């Protein structure tokens, strides 16, 4: 019994001690830790200057899940090994959790040295000083010269500064279609809303799903809405994001009306808002759906599955004239994002250099090996994987593109982003009116800036 009492008592002591230290150290600890960090940071910086090849270990938080993220990352790391053999990267796989983990890291002062940041993270971290402004490194590392003039928007944010080294260029949302299904069923590839409605009716009569979409994820639903908007308002949802338009403007209202109408006519597969990519893509790849909405990165997979039966179309317009006029107003686009640097990293110069290097190599691999010409930075190596015809068509068109918008993840106003995502998905249920749509989104549209 005595033994037990002692154990229990010592338990208590531990907790008491723990409790005490938690109570009084809270605030003090924070600043102390920061001070400490700075000190060691400068020390370390000096050390690396004197001794060049000191092994350095950097923590990096990056996407690493499928071939599209793993292979470029591995390539970039292998190249880094050749260039800076003293740098070792410790990878933490990015969780698909709306930035929960990264934000907690920032809150606890445990941010990795390098992390992948999108516009939402940049916007949040900028305010709290958790992201290093990279302007001086853009110049000193010559990063600006490596950018295409058309992708400068991915390097510089609205405030004129750079917070991440981009690798992805301006990507697009495309409307894919199965040429064979259109021919077999004598359906004209739609150029206007009326023709699109006729196609929906005809495919439904033939037992074919007119348009497949993985609406369990919310961004494709926003992209669909945006496609319709861009027929009359080339800036699409981005104009709302910037607070320069109202959701009740005709371009937006008409787009919502059209979608509701088409959904009611049976444009989408059963239970579309709960289909994931694999399920929705299978409908298209197996010839059960005539059209499919996805980013241009789908080109590789659709070519593999459908060969030259697959193509992508210009978005149907209000009428023939509108179709021609808005033909090159594309939906989708790019924005600031890429490898960002923790301002508390030990050696800022070195970390920034590594981040910039990784971005370049990441883009290089995507360009040469993954058949993706839409990268942020110039690549001087020859392409290993030939472009499929659909990509050729797109790359021929790039010079002609008059405007782009943004994907849902490229929106800068988090509140608007969440609202438009939820509302666009609701539109696809068919049990949601344009009025509800406008009322739900208008609450979140940022005021004019």
């Amino acid at each position, binding site marked *: 019994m005595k033994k037990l009492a002692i154990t229990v008592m010592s338990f208590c002591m531990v907790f008491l001690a723990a409790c005490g230290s938690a109570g009084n150290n809270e605030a003090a600890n924070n600043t102390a830790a920061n001070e400490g960090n700075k000190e060691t940071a400068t020390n370390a910086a000096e050390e690396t200057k004197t001794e060049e090849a000191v092994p350095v270990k950097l923590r990096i938080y990056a996407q690493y899940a499928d071939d599209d993220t793993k292979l470029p990352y591995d390539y970039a790391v292998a190249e880094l090994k050749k260039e800076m053999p003293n740098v070792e990267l410790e990878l933490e796989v990015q969780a698909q959790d709306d930035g929960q983990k990264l934000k907690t890291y920032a*809150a606890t002062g445990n941010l990795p040295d390098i992390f992948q940041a999108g516009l939402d993270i940049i916007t949040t971290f900028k305010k709290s000083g958790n992201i290093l402004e990279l302007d001086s490194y853009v110049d000193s590392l010559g990063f600006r010269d490596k950018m295409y003039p058309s992708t400068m928007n991915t390097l510089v944010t609205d405030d004129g500064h750079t917070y991440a080294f981009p690798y992805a260029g301006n990507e697009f949302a495309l409307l894919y279609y199965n040429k064979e299904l259109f021919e077999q069923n004598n359906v004209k590839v739609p150029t206007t809303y009326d023709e699109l409605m006729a196609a929906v009716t005809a495919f439904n009569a033939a037992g074919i799903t007119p348009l497949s979409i993985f609406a369990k994820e919310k961004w494709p639903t926003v992209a669909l809405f945006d496609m319709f908007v861009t027929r009359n308002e080339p800036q699409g949802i981005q104009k709302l994001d910037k607070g320069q338009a109202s959701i009740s403007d005709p371009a937006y209202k008409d787009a919502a009306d059209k979608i509701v109408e088409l959904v009611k006519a049976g444009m989408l597969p059963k239970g579309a808002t709960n289909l994931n990519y694999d399920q929705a893509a299978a409908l298209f790849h197996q010839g059960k759906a005539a059209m499919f909405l996805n980013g241009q990165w789908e080109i590789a997979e659709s070519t593999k599955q459908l060969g030259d039966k697959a193509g992508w179309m210009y978005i149907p317009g209000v009428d023939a004239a509108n179709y021609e006029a808005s033909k090159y107003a594309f939906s989708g686009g790019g924005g600031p994002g890429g490898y960002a640097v923790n301002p508390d990293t030990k050696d800022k110069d070195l970390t920034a250099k590594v981040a910039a290097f990784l971005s370049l190599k990441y883009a290089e691999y995507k360009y040469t090996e993954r058949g993706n010409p839409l990268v942020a930075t110039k690549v001087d190596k020859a392409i290993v994987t030939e472009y499929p015809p659909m990509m050729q068509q797109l790359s021929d068109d790039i010079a002609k593109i008059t405007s782009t918008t943004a994907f849902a993840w490229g929106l800068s106003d988090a509140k608007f982003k969440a609202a438009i995502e939820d509302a666009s998905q609701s539109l696809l249920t068919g049990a949601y009116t344009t009025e509800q749509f406008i009322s739900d989104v208008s609450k979140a549209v940022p005021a004019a800036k």
Partner: protein
Amino acid sequence: MNKFLGNKTAILLFILPALLLYTVMVFYPIVQTFFRSMYEWDGLTEGTFIWFDNYTRLFQDSLFFTSVKNGLIFAIIITVTQIGIGSILAFAVADAKIKGRKILRISFFIPVVLSITVVCQLWLSIYNGEYGLINKIFEILGLEYKQDWLTSSKSAIIAIAFVNAWQYMGYHFALLLAGVKSVPEQYMEAARIDGATKLQAILKINIPMMAETYKFCLVFAITGGLNAFANMYIMTSGGPGTSTYTLTYLMYRSAFRVGEFGYGSAAAAILVIECLIATLIINRLIARERISY
């Protein structure tokens, strides 16, 4: 006796470790949540103190009411099914004459052992509109009763609640079984001698004797329902649109998708209060029932 049960040293020894650990790791963060619910705060910066503005906004937000309503629907469905089925199964398995009791007992608990991700993935496949099992069965039966289980804004919350109800029924089954086993044999003997049927014996003796067990099963089910998050996070992401939001989901969206940590904390604070009220009501109701018995 009072001296025996009022032993101060013993009481302190028994309660302090739990209280201390709980206060530091659980209660202190809860206090922080309440405190932060009065801030406009993104989780990282200093934030600004805004009194009760977050709450005022909350009460004007239609999403808040959707979330509260969904939490209640969720709680009611899981409470009724989990405790209902759990009781039937527990009483049946406690009956020494049922064959294969051990296998049954293990089987009923299997869904609890699996992770929620596995179970949600399975039900996603079952509910799927295009490839799903339920619609396929209707098709085979020649019925034109295909439903958009998870994609109609009306049925989605119910469909999700049943997944949770089904998965965690095993918890209630196990707790109730332990409760049944704690009812002394002689009471049942007495009932048998009085010529009571099995059902009568259960209603008149077991259930009242198990009032405490039912009390925590109720608290567990109702607060679990009001708190629901993982199911919708995996199955619908709150969709279609916002139709399967609960308060926890609203909190998650506000804090991480929108970056309004203060507003999310206000939603969480309301949730804690809601659960507390539910618990107090349950305690009142069950205490009364015991007196009447």
